[in-house]
């Protein structure tokens, strides 16, 4: 039966996260934006919450009594819960998606592809009362969406691999205890040449380059990672050597399937941002326009606000549907991409209007809307840009004509 009722568990997770965002995060977020990070004491305070949170593992909150280890991303079937809760993260501070201690984007890949020994060792490093992070190192200068084109090289040398190359835009890359680093044995092989290594902090030959200064999403750490004759033990090859015998395409597929649960989450966080900006602008309009300005001007504003709330709800429902499909074992590649495409699009529109309506006040530092407008742009870019999502949607609509990523006909 068609139903839009949240389960008690979802309501609890949503309300709990909302309270944390409202009371602890919102008061600090403007300063964290200026300082490009939260104070260390804040991360420690987040730990109880972080234990129950793992991005993209399908978990936004701890499943009661579940054997699943949320850190390992073992929360299949909980996409909807994650999406309902994730909206509150976006609402509080979008940076929360990545500043939350834990394995971050490295978690799901380690959980899906790591050997039992690797999972035990590396998830254990992140536990305990102190905050720890991990990272996922794929992007390079010159390769973003086209991940097959990475140029960081690896070669085997006895019981080690030697890595040479540079990674960029790696979230939590400087503070990560370990980073999953993608390299290739031969760029000509495409995905089949890819190898993934768990590189620990402090490994000789691995150093952190510059920390990026960003438009928004500033409380997150974004690092350049440099590898110069960096020697990594064979044991740190993700999944072990046998996993690559049939070609790393299986690994690539895992990465793509990960998107089916992560993209609705990215979409909903942008919806959370949009909602935050909408609340700001409605309040601003109420305070400044309704009673003191001529009615015709207010009518135009009401119409526009009504349009924005409608688009926010439409974007939210796209995310919910994609997550609901994931939870019910229905293939959702197209819907996940639509959620990822439309959520940030609405986020851009709403935050931009919030800044616009506030006129001279809107662009002042210290206004939440100003920060949200800068923050939301990245949601239109990471996890596949808007244009990548259009490609995915199109390819999933045309069932008889198989298209390559670059639009060539394959059949």
């Amino acid at each position: 039966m068609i139903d839009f009722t949240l389960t008690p568990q979802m309501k609890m997770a949503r309300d709990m996260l909302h309270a944390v965002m409202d009371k602890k995060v919102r008061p600090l977020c403007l300063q964290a934006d200026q300082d490009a990070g939260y104070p260390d004491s804040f991360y420690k305070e987040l730990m109880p919450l972080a234990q129950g949170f793992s991005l993209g593992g399908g978990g936004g909150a701890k499943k009661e009594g579940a054997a699943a280890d949320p850190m390992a991303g073992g929360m299949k079937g909980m996409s909807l819960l994650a999406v309902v809760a994730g909206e509150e993260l976006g609402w509080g501070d979008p940076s929360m998606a990545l500043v939350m201690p834990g394995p971050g984007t490295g978690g799901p890949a380690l959980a899906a592809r790591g050997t039992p020994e690797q999972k035990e060792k590396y998830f254990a490093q992140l536990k305990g009362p102190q905050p720890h992070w991990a990272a996922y190192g794929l992007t390079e200068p010159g390769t973003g969406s086209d991940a097959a084109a990475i140029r960081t090289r690896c070669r085997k040398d006895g019981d080690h691999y030697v890595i040479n190359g540079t990674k960029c835009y790696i979230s939590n890359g400087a503070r990560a205890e370990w980073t999953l680093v993608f390299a290739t044995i031969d760029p000509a092989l495409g995905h089949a040449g890819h190898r993934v290594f768990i590189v620990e902090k402090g490994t000789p030959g691995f150093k952190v380059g510059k920390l990026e200064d960003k438009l928004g999403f500033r409380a997150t750490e974004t690092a350049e990672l440099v590898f110069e004759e960096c020697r990594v033990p064979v044991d740190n090859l993700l999944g072990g050597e046998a996993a690559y015998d049939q070609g790393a395409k299986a690994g690539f597929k895992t990465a793509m399937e990960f998107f089916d649960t992560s993209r609705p989450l990215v979409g909903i966080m942008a919806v959370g941002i949009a909602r935050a900006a909408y609340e700001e602008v409605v309040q601003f309009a109420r305070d400044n326009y309704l009673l003191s300005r001529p009615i015709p001007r207010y009518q135009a504003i009401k119409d526009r606000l009504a349009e924005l709330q409608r688009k926010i709800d439409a974007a939210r429902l796209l995310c919910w549907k994609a997550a609901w499909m994931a939870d019910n074992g229905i293939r959702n590649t197209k819907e996940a991409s639509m959620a990822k495409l439309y959520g940030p699009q609405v986020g851009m529109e709403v935050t931009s209007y919030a800044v616009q309506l506030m006129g001279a006040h809107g662009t002042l530092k210290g206004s939440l809307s100003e920060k949200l407008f800068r923050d939301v742009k990245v949601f239109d870019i990471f996890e596949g840009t808007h244009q990548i999502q259009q490609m995915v949607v199109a390819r999933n609509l045309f069932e008889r004509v198989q298209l390559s990523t670059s639009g060539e006909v394959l059949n």
Partner: protein
Amino acid sequence: MISFACSEDEQSLLDTLGRFAQNQLMPDARAADRRQSVDPAVRGAYREMGAHLLGLPEAAGGIGFGLTAKILAEEVLARSDAAQTVGLDDLGLAAQAVVALGSEAQIAQLLGDAERVWALASSEADPAAHLGYMSTVARRQGDDYVLSGVKTCVFNADRADRLVVLARAEDGEGLAGIAAFVVDARATGVQVALEDRMGLRAGRPCRVQIEGAPGVRLTGAADPAAALTRLFDIGRVVNAARMVGAARGAMGFAVDYAQDRKAFGKPICAHQGLAFFIADMEVALESARNLVLKAAWQLERGEAATVAACNAAICATEAAVKVTVDAVQVFGGAGFMKDMPVERYMRDVRTLGNALGTPEDHVAVLGEVLYGPESLKSAAKDGKKVAQA
């Protein structure tokens, strides 16, 4: 528990209706458009399934399927042809008006004979009219009312036995003072003329001129303005579902054509400019459909659904107009020809989008509900937080 799937009973009903639409509505769609009528055999098959009784409570002759089933049924039928879907809706919104506004006795008496054909006369012929300003008036004469006014875009009116006519009965602001009257469609003083409209032609849109015809006032609602609001909300969502259905139909043709038609050595869908164009159509359409589902769910539960219904109606109009216009574009020159079905979808959707209030009308309602003086009071009560969902 959130679910985007309907119940098993609803699904099997929709599967049946989907086959009916494919096998009976689709092949006759172009001819029905030209004739301006639904084929009697098709109508017979539709009534035999009991489809005309969907969405009515059992006291009003319903068969155990609620508003969600009715709304989804309209969507499925409109995928093949929105015009015949409207033409088949013999009880339609008029019956919903009796349910929303009539007393128990009136509901039982008026809807007791489901073989009758009903039509809702809501839109005013005076272009300056809107819900708050209706030029159709009902004057009291003893125990009865006498109606005068001109209505337009009244579907199925020339086939109808009974009309439900909205008219101003007393002075008042907005919906206050507006009432619904049951009028015998063949009474002296009622003149019905088929209109020549761009779309929904098989739905037989008519102009209805009423001069001194007697009407029975529907008197069951404790809060008539709220009941009228619910009626309009149901109308908005039913119409939105039809638009989404029709747009889905056009989308199917466009997706198919894009894979068959070749240009510059490959199917046109392999050209990214066109592929992205079609991807955007899909996003718009899915967004609108989800809003329709949410509004249907709220209506079925009997909740106040004005925000959801207006959201659904506006989004569906915008999305369906975009998708059907763009579907014609995908077909290029062929899309402009009546040999291809896409131009029909485009005409029908544009007509649906104007039939029960335009997006501008819905936005005005939304602006009042969300940001008007009443909303300020409730916002002050809740603090300034706006709850999710």
